């Protein structure tokens, strides 16, 4: 259900990896938050995600949502970035047999899917082997 305004609104995160950090406990949040759930402080500063990390789990989607039909099967993983943020995204440019928990990956800017109704080409981050 991507609409132009809903897509546009997330661009700072999807294109530029804009995050924020609690000034008190230094935890980094992505997407940015208005209040730190750990220390309940509201004093947060802008930062950007570190673009490298390691895979903490992965799966291969064989029965996809409709807008991903032309991509299946594809791998999706959770990656622990070196700044401590856990991020979900597709792992590409990697044979399924080579996927491993603990493998090092970096973020690249890629097309995610074509939105059928409004004709939006949706972009964002994916992971590739480092």
């Amino acid at each position, binding site marked *: 259900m991507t609409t132009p305004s809903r897509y546009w609104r997330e661009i700072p995160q*999807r294109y530029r990896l804009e995050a924020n950090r609690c000034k008190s406990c230094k935890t980094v949040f992505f997407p940015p938050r208005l209040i730190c759930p750990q220390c309940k402080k509201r004093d947060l500063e802008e930062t950007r995600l570190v673009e490298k990390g390691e895979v903490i*789990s*992965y799966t291969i989607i*064989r*029965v996809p949502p409709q807008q991903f039909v032309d991509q299946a099967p594809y791998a*999706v*993983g959770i990656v622990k970035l070196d700044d401590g943020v856990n991020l979900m995204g597709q792992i590409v440019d990697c044979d399924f047999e080579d996927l491993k928990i603990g493998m090092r990956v970096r973020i690249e800017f890629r097309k*995610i899917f074509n939105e059928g109704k409004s004709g939006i080409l949706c972009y*964002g981050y994916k992971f590739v082997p480092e």
Partner: protein
Amino acid sequence: MREVAVIGVGMTKWGELWDKSLRNIFVETALLALDDAGVVEVNSMYVGSMSSGLFVGQEHIASLLADYLGQSNIPSTRVETACASGGLALRLGYMEIAAGISELVLVGGIEKMTDVSGYEATYALGTAADQEYEGYHGITFPGLYGLIARAHMEKYGTTREQLAMVAVKNHHNGSKNPLAQFPYEITVDSVLNSVMIADPLRILDCSPITDGAAAVVLCPAEMARKMDKPVVKIIGSGHATDTIALSSRKDITWLEAVYKAAKQAYAEADKGPQDIDIIEVHDCFTIAEICVLEALGIVEKGKGGDAVEQGLTSLEGKIPVNTSGGLKAKGHPVGATGAAQVVEIVKQLRGEAGERQIKKARIGLAQNMGGSGGSSVVHLFERE
């Protein structure tokens, strides 16, 4: 707070109910609960439904269902916490009676999932995950639990066969439940050879798309004692939340919402995991049953797979889990599941569970969960 009892339970056959509408499925089920309780009117209603809007294009169903149940003008509330909606409806009804606000409350859940295509159902279910930061990247619910399963196998050595054994056990139990959607046995081999959905999970690791409802009637325990049925009390209730994005959790193999909800329920009941005779858990995927048993404290962290392999959780085991067939075999009409767990526990505690009856069951636990663990509700029941 007043003591609260369940005096009526109702459930009809679950499955792909092409000839029945959302309102009729619910009303048939709720009438069974009213008949079982021996009442015609209640003071209020709570109905769990995850997404009647996306599944049948109908919101405002609390009023619709009260009307068609012949309970005109009573307060009726729809409750939504994804797949934990039915369990949360029970908690709200429990609180209303315990607080002395009402004497009779009908609590239930409904989901009519087969009026839409597979893609539309996948989309509707996917809305229980973080749409902007999970769904956007092409993850599905089997995918989320696939991520949990892979991490659990890596961290604790849980095996692919142990996952399959959860499905085999629950189908065995479901084969003894005439209301189950899939009341037949499967084998470990059939699970391991079934089509892959989201590695390492195969189709026989996944709960199905189901139409169905369940309902129960609550009243003060004092009122229940004047009736000629065994009195089943709710002795503990807990509810907790977690990040709905799986990736935001420190340890994706640990269900903190389940742990916190169970802790509340155990404390209120002054009971612990060692006191429980039977359990219904939210096995939306085989790995979920394993993780939930760990979070409930029934087994140690990482030992959920061993528990099913060693038979601890089978019908003949020390703590039978999902005697109804669970979500896997009984079906999973998402908003109704939490209420159906209560129906099974009450039937077991009353000794009305037929072929799957557990002897001397006195204390039961029901655990219901939303999304990939973003919410959970736990209740404890005791037969007087």
